[in-house]
C-alpha cells in the first residue's frame, strides 16, 4: 500500500466513523489527530503518519470535503505555525503535551514576535528573558498580536543575551498566556475594530522546559515559524477570480450602473495581474512540491499590492458610495459590525496593512533581490555589533 493509499484509507475511515455532521468539532478533530491526519508528515503518535507533507492536501480534501472543520481557520497560529515549530524544536514530551490541544483547538495560539521598536528589524527586539534557576523571567512589550485575547499559548521570541550580535542573543519559548505577568490590550486600527493586540509582559515566568531550541538559537527557530507564515499569507488560491479580485468582479457584474470604460480597462488589467499571480502560485507548487522557499515571497509581495489596487478600484467604482462606512465602533469581541453584502470600504481600509504585516513590501523586495537573485546585501550598521551597542528608537 502506498503512503497515499494509506492516507486516503485512514481519512475515509475517520470520516466514516465520525461523520462530521453529527460529531462535535472537538471530537472530530481529536479523531483526526489520533489517526495521524493532523500534520501527516509528523511522526506517528504526534498527529502524523510520517509521510510526505504533500499528502496533507489529500487528507484535507477528504476530511474537509466531507464537511470537517478547517483547523487553519480555527487556530491559524496554532495549526500553521506553532505545530511545525513545536514538532521541529520541542522535546518529545513537550510536543506530546502541546500538539493535541493545539490541533483540536482546546488551546488557541498567538505569536509574540513584533515589538514597537522591532518591526522590519525583528531581530532587533528588546523583550528580555532572564534565567532564574529552572524558569525564565520575561519583561517587554509585544505588538501586532492576532488572537492574543483568545490565546492560551504564545510563541515568544525574547532576548537572552544583549551582548551578542542581535541574531545570536535570542531564545524561543512557549509562553502560557494565563501567566499573571501577561496583560493583553486591544489595539484599535484605522478600520475601527481591534484585530490585533498589544501584549505587555511584566516578569512573566516560563519553565525552561518550554524553551524551543537552544539558548541563543531563537532566530533559527523563528525562521521555521516565519517561513510558514509567509507561505500561508502569500500562498493564494488556485481558483480563478477568488480573493480580492473576486470582490471587484462581483461589483462589476452586480452594478452595471457604475460601469465606465476607464474602470473596465483598469479592471481587466487587475484581473490579468491577479490571474498571473494565481498561476504563478500554481506553477511554484508544481515545481517545488508543497514546500515553497523564498520564492513564496513573490506571492506575498504581489498579493498585498494587488489587494490594495483592487480595493482602490472598488472604491473608485463605488463613487459617492465610497464615502459611506459601516461603522467604526468595534463590537465587544473587537470585530466589525455585520453588513449585508460585501463591506468593500472596510476591506479597502484593511488592505492598507497588507504591505506592512507579515513582512513589509520593502523587506520582501530585499529578500527577492538577495535570496532569489543573489544580489549583494546592503551596507549594515548592526552586523557583528553587540545588540546592546546598536542604536535603537
Amino acid at each position, binding site marked *: 500500500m502506498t503512503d497515499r493509499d494509506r492516507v486516503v484509507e485512514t481519512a475515509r475511515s475517520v470520516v466514516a466513523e465520525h461523520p462530521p455532521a453529527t460529531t462535535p468539532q472537538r471530537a472530530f478533530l481529536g479523531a483526526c489527530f489520533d489517526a495521524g491526519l493532523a500534520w501527516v508528515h509528523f511522526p506517528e503518535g504526534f498527529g502524523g503518519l510520517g509521510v510526505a507533507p504533500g499528502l496533507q492536501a489529500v487528507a484535507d480534501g477528504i476530511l474537509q470535503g466531507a464537511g470537517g472543520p478547517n483547523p487553519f481557520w480555527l487556530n491559524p497560529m496554532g495549526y500553521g505555525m506553532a505545530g511545525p515549530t513545536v514538532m521541529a524544536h520541542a522535546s518529545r514530551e513537550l510536543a506530546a503535551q502541546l500538539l493535541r490541544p493545539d490541533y483540536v483547538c482546546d488551546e488557541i495560539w498567538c505569536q509574540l514576535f513584533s515589538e514597537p521598536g522591532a518591526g522590519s528589524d525583528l531581530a532587533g527586539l528588546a523583550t528580555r528573558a532572564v534565567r532564574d534557576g529552572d524558569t525564565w523571567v520575561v519583561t517587554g512589550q509585544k505588538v501586532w498580536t492576532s488572537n492574543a485575547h483568545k490565546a492560551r499559548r504564545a510563541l515568544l521570541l525574547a532576548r537572552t543575551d544583549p551582548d551578542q550580535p542581535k541574531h545570536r542573543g535570542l531564545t524561543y519559548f512557549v509562553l502560557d498566556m494565563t501567566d499573571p505577568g501577561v496583560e493583553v490590550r486591544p489595539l484599535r486600527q484605522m478600520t*475601527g475594530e481591534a484585530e490585533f493586540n498589544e501584549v505587555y509582559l511584566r516578569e512573566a515566568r516560563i519553565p525552561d522546559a518550554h524553551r524551543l531550541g537552544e539558548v541563543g538559537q531563537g532566530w533559527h527557530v523563528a525562521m521555521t515559524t516565519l517561513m510558514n507564515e509567509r507561505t500561508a499569507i502569500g500562498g493564494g488560491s488556485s481558483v480563478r477570480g477568488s480573493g480580492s479580485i473576486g470582490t471587484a468582479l462581483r461589483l462589476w457584474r452586480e452594478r452595471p450602473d457604475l460601469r*465606465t470604460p476607464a474602470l473596465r480597462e483598469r479592471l481587466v488589467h487587475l484581473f490579468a495581474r491577479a490571474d498571473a499571480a494565481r498561476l504563478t502560485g500554481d506553477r511554484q507548487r508544481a515545481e517545488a512540491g508543497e514546500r515553497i522557499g523564498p520564492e513564496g515571497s513573490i506571492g506575498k509581495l504581489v498579493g498585498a499590492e494587488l489587494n490594495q489596487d483592487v480595493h482602490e478600484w472598488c472604491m473608485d467604482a463605488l463613487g459617492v458610495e465610497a464615502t459611506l462606512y459601516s461603522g467604526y465602533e468595534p463590537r465587544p469581541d473587537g470585530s466589525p459590525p455585520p453588513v449585508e453584502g460585501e463591506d468593500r470600504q472596510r476591506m479597502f481600509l484593511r488592505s492598507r496593512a497588507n504591505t506592512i504585516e507579515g513582512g513589509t513590501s520593502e523587506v520582501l523586495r530585499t529578500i527577492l533581490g538577495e535570496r532569489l537573485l543573489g544580489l549583494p546585501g546592503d551596507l549594515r550598521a548592526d552586523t557583528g555589533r553587540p545588540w546592546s551597542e546598536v542604536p535603537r528608537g
Partner: protein
Amino acid sequence: MVEFEFTPEQRDLRAVAREFCTERFAGPEVRRLVETPDGFDREVWRRLGRDVGLLGLALPEELGGAGAGLVDLALVAEEFGRAVAPAPLVGTVALAATALRLAGDDGTAEELLPAIAEGEAVVALAATDDRGAWAPAQPTVRATRTDSGWRLTGEQAHVLDGAAADAVLVLATTETGTGLFAVDGAADGLTREPLSVLDLTRRLARLRYADVPARAVGEPGQAATAVAGARDVAAVVLAAEAVGGAQRLLDMSVEYARTRLQFGRAIGSFQAVKHRCADMLVDVEHARSVAYHAAWAQDAGTDDPRVAADLATTVTAEAYLRVAKNTVQVHGGIGFTWEHPTHLYYKRAVGDAALLGGRAAAAERLAAAVLDGPALGGVA
C-alpha cells in the same frame, strides 16, 4: 496680481490661520470632535467668523465679508487641511455662500451671508439627487407653488453638513425648470438622517422633504450657474485643503523617517524610504502648484477657471491619496492604528476624491476641454 506671489497681507493671513488651527484643531481635539454627533464645535466656528474673520474672506464687504479673493480663502483652506480640521468650511463657506452669492437674490443673500461670515449660520448646499449624485439634471426634490408659498417634496443623499445646517439651500425641480430654495433646518416635514461616513471629519446626511415650506432663491435660470460656480470655488478649497493635508503627512513621514531606527540606522537613510519620500515631495509640490493656480485663475484670470479647477481636482486628489498611502507605509504598523493621525488624513483624501461629482468627473471634464474641444491657449 502676479501668479504664485503672495502679498505680505496674505502671508500674515496664513500665519493667523495656522495659529488658529494649531491651537483649536490639535490632534487630540480633532480626535475628540470626530467622535461627537455634529463632528464640529459651534463655538470654535463662531470664533472663526466673529473674532478671527476667516469665514467672510471671500464675501463682498457690503455683506459682512472682507472682499478678498479665492487666493486668500485657499490659504486659509490649506491651513484647515493641514490640521484636517473638522468644520463646515467646504459646505458652508465654499458651497453655500458661493451659491447664495451667485443666485441673484439680494434679499436672501443679505440675510444669510453676514450670518455665515459671523460664524452664526451653518448653511448647507443640497445639490445632489437621492443617490448622492452631484448637480443632477433632474433634481429628485420637487418644488410646488401653493397658496402659502413653495413646498418641497422628495429626497437627497450625501448632503455635506446637511444634518447640522441651520438652513439648507436646496436644488429642486419646478414646473419651469430647476431652482434653488432656502429651507429652515428646523422646518416641519424635513427629516435629516446623518449618514455613517468613512471620513468622520466631513459629515453627510440624507434629507427627506415631506411638504416642507421653502423660499425661492433667485431666478430659476440662475440655479445651475450658481451651483456650478459653487463647485468651482469648492474645488479650489478642497484642492488647497489637500495641499495642506499632504504637506502635513509629508512632514510627519520625514520626521518619522529621520528618527525611527531599524537595523541600527534611521529608516530614512534607506533608499526605499528616502525615494518614497522624494515621490511624496513631488506630489505635494505639484498639488500646491495646481491648487494655487486654480485660485489665481478665478481671481486674476490667468487661465480658464473651470479648466484650472478641474486640473486642480485631478492632480490634488491623486496626489493626496498617494501621499496618504505612502505615509502609512513609511510609518509601518503604527500608521495603521486609530491612535495615529494618519488615518484621518487618509480618509479625508478618499472622501474628497468622491465629493462634488468626484475626481473621475473632473478628469472627464478636463479631457473634454483639452482633448475634444478646440485647442486651449498654448495647447498645440
